């Protein structure tokens, strides 16, 4: 029996296929979760993938946080279930209050799709333990509203507690405060990041396979069920 990882699909979710594939590449079972269904189907962890949930019309992630499935995710996260939010998923986790801060329009105002170097700043979370601390990884970044913003107190808190998990290196692609690409919750179980580790799980279709470590880390965090 393998680890069961839920992958949520909202209307407008795009990277659910990729997230599910990444989960499978990490030898876990990808379990589809539907936005309107609060049932988490007994999963061990949840990935909130990228895309434009509900068209992102009001504000990125602002509608998705109210989806029935998210109420269950918020509750489960409160009990320590690992949750990963990628891109739009990160925005949703911020809107849902599982992570602090917000994501705003890129500094150059247009969509950016590029291979991005990230530095792993914290390798003690549920989603980053397979990396060496300080390691640099190359994964795609693709977003129009990826600029991480938070008030100074929150930033100080994140930095002080070592809760910045991934940081942009080689230039700030979107105007994020402190070059922040990804952060974690106080207990290290919830991680959100703008770049897309699920697009970097094999060199054939991604720039590298550097992103696979995110999903493999989960196995360390949860353990493989007997």
């Amino acid at each position: 029996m393998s680890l069961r990882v839920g992958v949520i699909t909202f209307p407008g979710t795009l990277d659910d296929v990729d997230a599910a594939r990444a989960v499978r590449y990490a030898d876990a079972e990808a379990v589809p979760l539907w936005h309107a269904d609060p049932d988490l189907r007994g999963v061990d962890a949840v990935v909130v993938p990228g895309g434009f949930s509900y068209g992102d019309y009001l504000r990125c992630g602002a509608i998705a946080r109210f989806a029935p499935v998210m109420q269950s995710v918020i509750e489960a996260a409160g009990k320590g279930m690992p949750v990963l939010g990628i891109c739009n998923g990160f925005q949703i986790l911020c809107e849902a209050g599982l992570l602090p801060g917000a994501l705003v329009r890129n500094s150059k105002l247009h969509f950016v799709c590029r291979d991005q170097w990230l530095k792993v700043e914290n390798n003690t979370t549920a989603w980053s333990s397979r990396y060496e601390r300080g390691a640099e990884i190359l994964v795609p970044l693709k977003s129009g509203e990826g600029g991480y913003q938070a008030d100074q107190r929150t930033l100080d808190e994140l930095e002080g507690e070592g809760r910045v998990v991934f940081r942009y290196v080689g230039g700030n692609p979107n105007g994020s405060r402190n070059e922040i690409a990804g952060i974690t919750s106080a207990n290290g179980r919830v991680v959100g990041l703008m770049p897309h580790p699920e697009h970097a799980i094999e060199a054939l279709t991604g720039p590298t396979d550097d992103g696979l470590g995110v999903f493999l880390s989960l196995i360390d965090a949860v353990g493989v069920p007997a």
Partner: protein
Amino acid sequence: MTAIQPAVDTVEHASGTPDLEQPYRELGLKDDEYARIKEILGRRPTDAELAMYSVMWSEHCSYKSSKVHLSYFGETTTDEMRSKMLAGIGENAGVVDVGDGWAVTFKAESHNHPSYVEPYQGAATGVGGIVRDILAMGARPLAVMDPLRFGDPEAADTRRVVHGIVAGVGGYGNCLGLPNIGGEVVFDSSYQGNPLLNALCVGAMRVEDLHLAHASGTGNRVVLFGARTGLDGIGGVSVLASETFGGDEHSGGRKKLPAVQVGDPFTEKVLIECCLELFAQRVVVGIQDLGGAGLSCATSELASAGDGGMHVYLDRVPLRATGMTPAEVLSSESQERMCAVVKPEDVDAFMAICAKWDVIATDIGEVTDGDHLVITWNGEVVVDVPPRTVAHEGPVYHRPIERPADQDALQADTPDALARPSTPEELLALVTTMASSPNLASRKWVTDQYDRYVRGGTVLAQPSDSGMIRIDETTNRGVALSTDCNGRFTKLDPYAGAQLALAEAYRNVATSGATPVAVTNCLNFGSPEDPAVMWQFEQAVKGLADGCAELGIPVTGGNVSFYNQTGSTAVLPTPVVGVLGVIDDVRRRIPTGIGAEAGETLLLLGDTRDEFGGSEWAHVVHGHLGGLPPKVDLAREKLLGEILVAGSRDGMVSAAHDLSDGGLAQALVEACLIGETGARVFLDGDADPFVQLFSESAGRVLVAVPRTEELRFTDMCTARGLPWSKVGVVDPEAGALEIQGIGTLPLAELREAWEATLPALFD
């Protein structure tokens, strides 16, 4: 304010008022076309019928000027070429059997005029429209490509158009979750007031899941689903309403909305997933997307492709504006709508799936056993027509054709007398000048605004020679696509120019290791009323069709766009050609950048001649366009393709890059920069270095072969009769492109030259 309820022009009313004057000329119909409609119906058409005929008999929908020429594609397609084709011209998109039980469908379409008027929405809805065409074949859309043409990059208005179009392509495509895997960005002042926005989509399905648009089966229901119908994109049809209401354009707040439609990619994304679930549950008999001409097109085409009879209750169509007339409802080009034919017993299941995706679905009618399309509005008959006369029996024009009077002078004005660089310093400087010129500079500024990763199937995307996607994760089967056209070549010789476009797209696909199997096109020309333009068009169609016959690959579909001109000056004739290739195992793809393996030899395949007519060099350095384009040799292109595919299959080639605009120099610059690896190049001491570096002779590819494979590969070329020469070695230590006898260009310097141009122009 209470909406004014218009008096509806019914069939009964039309019969009783035979002499009522109708604004058919304002709707673009000629006297004889209007007379023909009256003859078909035996009475004057109603407003709604007039709206349908006028839009369906327009150039855009009826291909009335191009039809007589396009039939040549069919005439030149042999049974052997057709053997892998599951659907061809006339369907929403061509479909090709690519093996392992997979069918691939692809098509390109233009959205040129809207993209000038309102670049963002014009481009966005151009992408949306072609994606629905692919969806209507029963396929999951997998990727898009966008061949773009803009005016002079320095001109003030170009910035507005570039920003809008690029953001529109990205905004819509990114939100649909379709990777953008390539295309073109070309600047030429002929496109100043008329940019070209061509959009290509490719999709895949299991062979048995192919859906063709038809409406067979008396009693089957007609279901409209997706977005509500509004006043957008109605264009000329508003003239009907203003005529009816004495020209009061403000009545009911409903007139003169912008003629450019507004896209909602989120609705389309949901519509895609909804349709795929409908297909999977097998509750669809026939399906048609609503694009140009909206419901007029969908109902008449569905009905005439089926048994012929259909009854549509038009008042059931969900609207987003009040007081719309039947003519407006029929003509609306509101986006993100589809129309399906469903068996009565499947309607509940169909509606349940739409409800799951929050897609509005409405039963608007049924297939009948008659042979007429009858449309009622609150119980009154407003349309009663034989559907084929609307959809397929539009006028056919034999437009006058005349070779332009100045064509001879154009061809006689060769580039031979233009000053050429002679010293090593001049040659070296030219390499950089060319690499930084707007048409050769890196397209990163554009393509970095497009998502190329979504769905995890993208094996190659820009700046590779072709875009390649994996369609089967278990077998690694994939397809490659390239679109190409050099409008200057086509201007100098439309027949050869179209063949050169075909040759380049074919070569690009083969250069990435895939076997070319099918062709689509998007033919962008000036006014068909200009005999010189019609000559260009006729020549280009013949050239393309004859070329396809020689290469043995069929044209499976295409699109014609006329009236592309700035004032009275036509754009460069731009027959964009898209070639689809198949690769058994995408892991065998050939990348564009060198340096993947230690110790590679650089070989140039093909012959280099002194050919500069229409070249990028003549354009950039001298602003010159004249002479003849490079010679076409399709037998050579075919051989070259076979060699490249064999090289990929047997692991003999580690990188390859096609030679086209800018010649060998530009190919070397790109291969080095993309591969982030330097090279040492040796030119032939007996030949003119300028010609060797910058000629644009066709049928050439730069390949990198691992030293261990060099002999095996060159022996194969020699045995098959393909000329080759050793032009250099990859040198990972150098960090530069060194051209012996000319000089050395550090890669950092080249990268700055290549990548800085578009940001400097448009950031």
